[in-house]
């Protein structure tokens, strides 16, 4: 199973909703994650003050972004880390390839990195004869299955243990079929140990890049991130330009919000702060460390004050864990790299409204994501903005391919609706007609059938409110 296929969110969601196994896998996972997160923030006062602090740190960093990126570059360079800038994923891929070729590297072990997913880096390196192996257990499973992550924190959350056991049986030499998670984990450990030991390079993402000290912070539980950034002689980190924070003291509150929001853990097993390659006196660690700062549409998102707030994200995934839509359709239905509510605002902005203009409408605007966001991103507000952008109704459009979903029919219907409600005579006439003929309209009529395919057809009353009021003797003023 490679997730629901189809060209649009609507098609993929339809297929996902009919997949009972997929729905059960997500339902179980999301219920568990919501419960664990709630337990972490039982103290409402602490939660409100901590998220207020988190929001202020992210907004402050964005307000000074160009200066902080320059400061980060200067301090990383002073620490011996080489900084590269890439405007597009193509440029970033070429930079990675160039660094690897310089070192004649043939194999790369990878820690979890969503930016490398944005780059489709594994496929790119594969086409150039370099093997990239995912080392996070969830990513390892997803890569083995030839799939993409369905969740930004737990990539293999769409699979159950039986599906993983069958995959391991097919793909790992000498694996004896078992559905025991400990034995499956042990099998992956044994395979990957050898890979860490032999790899020519390690690649990772970045959770926070600290401008003040020139430090790259990585958050993880498994130790694969430490392996990738410690054992091979070369470490390449890739990150979006939005991940910078101003001060070292900004890191602990964000780290606390991240782990507690993401998986309901008070802390992860490892918090790894890298401020340089192996020094003259160190005995281990990579001899070279590179950081690639990727734009890929982020400067465009930054240009508008409303969409800029999308860049506050610290990638905890709480919005998807609490989303009634995500829980039912799973991550692959969204089609982009980032699923769930944050994906619904990031993907159309990064990849364009043309392909992803339907995502902002895949929401009831219930606000669950906004309630749990640890840095207070106004996701619902940005969703509405993107709907306006998609329909070509934005007074100051700024999003890529704005207006790509403009529909003349839809615009005419709304114009008619507006005219009718502004004109008392027309309103009286139309409502009168509908009391007589409304119930004769077939459920499958154009414009109505989309609604009635999953809902009962509304039933029109025999008399309008105006007529009823008149009969009661109320004056029509």
């Amino acid at each position, binding site marked *: 199973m490679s997730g629901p296929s189809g060209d649009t969110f609507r098609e993929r969601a339809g297929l996902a909703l009919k997949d009972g196994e997929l729905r059960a896998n997500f339902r*179980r996972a999301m219920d568990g994650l919501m419960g664990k997160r709630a337990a972490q923030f039982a103290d409402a006062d602490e939660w409100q003050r901590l998220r207020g602090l988190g929001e202020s740190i992210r907004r*402050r960093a964005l307000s000074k972004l160009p200066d902080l990126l320059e400061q980060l570059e200067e301090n990383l360079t002073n620490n011996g880390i080489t900084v590269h*800038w890439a405007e597009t994923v193509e440029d970033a891929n070429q930079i990675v390839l160039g660094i690897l070729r310089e070192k004649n590297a043939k194999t790369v072990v990878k820690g979890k990195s969503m930016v490398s997913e944005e780059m489709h880096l594994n496929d790119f390196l594969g086409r150039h004869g370099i093997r990239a192996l995912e080392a996070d257990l969830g990513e390892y499973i997803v890569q083995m299955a030839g799939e993409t992550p369905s969740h930004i924190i737990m990539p293999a959350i769409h699979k159950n*243990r039986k599906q993983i056991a069958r995959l391991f049986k097919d793909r790992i030499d000498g694996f004896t079929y078992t559905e025991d998670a400990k034995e499956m984990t042990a099998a992956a450990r044994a395979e990957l140990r050898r890979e860490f030991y032999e790899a020519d390079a390690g690649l990772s993402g970045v959770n926070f890049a600290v401008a003040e000290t020139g430090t790259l912070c990585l958050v993880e539980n498994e130790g694969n991130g430490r*392996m990738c950034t410690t054992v091979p002689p070369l470490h390449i980190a890739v990150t979006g330009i939005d991940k910078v924070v101003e001060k070292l003291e900004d890191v602990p*509150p964000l780290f606390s919000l991240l782990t507690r929001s993401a998986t309901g853990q008070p802390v992860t*097993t*490892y918090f790894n702060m890298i401020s340089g390659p192996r020094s003259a006196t160190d*005995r281990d660690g990579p001899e070279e460390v590179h950081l690639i700062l990727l734009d890929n549409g982020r400067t465009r998102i*930054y240009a508008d004050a409303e969409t800029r707030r999308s860049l506050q994200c610290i990638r905890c995934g709480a919005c998807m864990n609490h989303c009634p839509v995500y829980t039912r359709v799973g991550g692959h239905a969204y089609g982009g790299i980032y699923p769930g509510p944050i994906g619904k605002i990031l993907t159309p902005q990064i990849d364009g409204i043309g392909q992803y203009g339907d995502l902002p409408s895949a929401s009831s605007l219930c606000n669950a994501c906004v309630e749990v966001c640890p840095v207070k991103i106004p996701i619902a507000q940005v969703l509405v903005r993107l709907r306006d952008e998609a329909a070509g109704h934005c007074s100051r459009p700024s999003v890529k391919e704005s207006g790509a979903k403009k529909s003349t029919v839809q615009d005419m219907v709304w114009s008619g609706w507006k005219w009718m409600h502004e004109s008392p005579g027309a309103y009286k006439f139309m409502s009168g007609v509908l009391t007589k003929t409304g119930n004769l309209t077939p459920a499958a009529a154009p414009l109505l059938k989309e609604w009635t395919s999953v809902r009962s057809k509304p039933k029109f009353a025999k008399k309008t409110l105006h007529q009823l009021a008149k009969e009661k003797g109320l004056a029509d003023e």
Partner: protein
Amino acid sequence: MSSARDNILARLRKSDPSGDLPGSDFSVMEEKTWTAEEKIERLIAMMSAVNTELHKTTEAGWPDLVAELLKQREIDSLLIGTNNRLMDRLQGAWHGKGDAPDIRLYDRSYEDERAEVFAAPAALTTTRGGIAETGSLIVWPDAAEPRLLSLAPPVHIALLEADRLHNTFWQAMMAEGWKNGLPTNALLISGPSKTADIEQELTYGVHGPKELIVLIIEG
């Protein structure tokens, strides 16, 4: 690639978001405090909850405890760095005991020693301190105690001096002025390596140590 750099910075500088510069109220980070005794108990509770084994011991008693813990696991060698204090203490306590574990040293560069480091069944390190709030060890690897000691061997034994416990991560970095000089690698370690990537079932010992044993040295 300087043009990419210039283009990105130029695009960012077209906007002026300086009006959106909220102040940051760190009081929620400042006010978490515990007594010395509470800090130890909290650290033990937090780390035990994620499968860490903790023992209270003394400066005189820890070498024998290490020998005993290794014996229980039928491990006959221990990898350490070149920290002189550790070496002196272990050699003093284990000298002349026939069944004491072999002490192996990680004292050359990784390239010369990697086979031995990856094959070592257990390693011992000191720590810079601990964090009560989250149950974390602060580890700053260096030449005397390289990074892989706390990562490659399946058993990691860490010595933690009770009087080096901080309330929170934020308070630790502020009190010690970390921003004025971080090592090439600084770590918080809060348990043995773990994953929940298969059906959210918590499983210990993925890529890092399968066991973390913390010896809290009091007095």
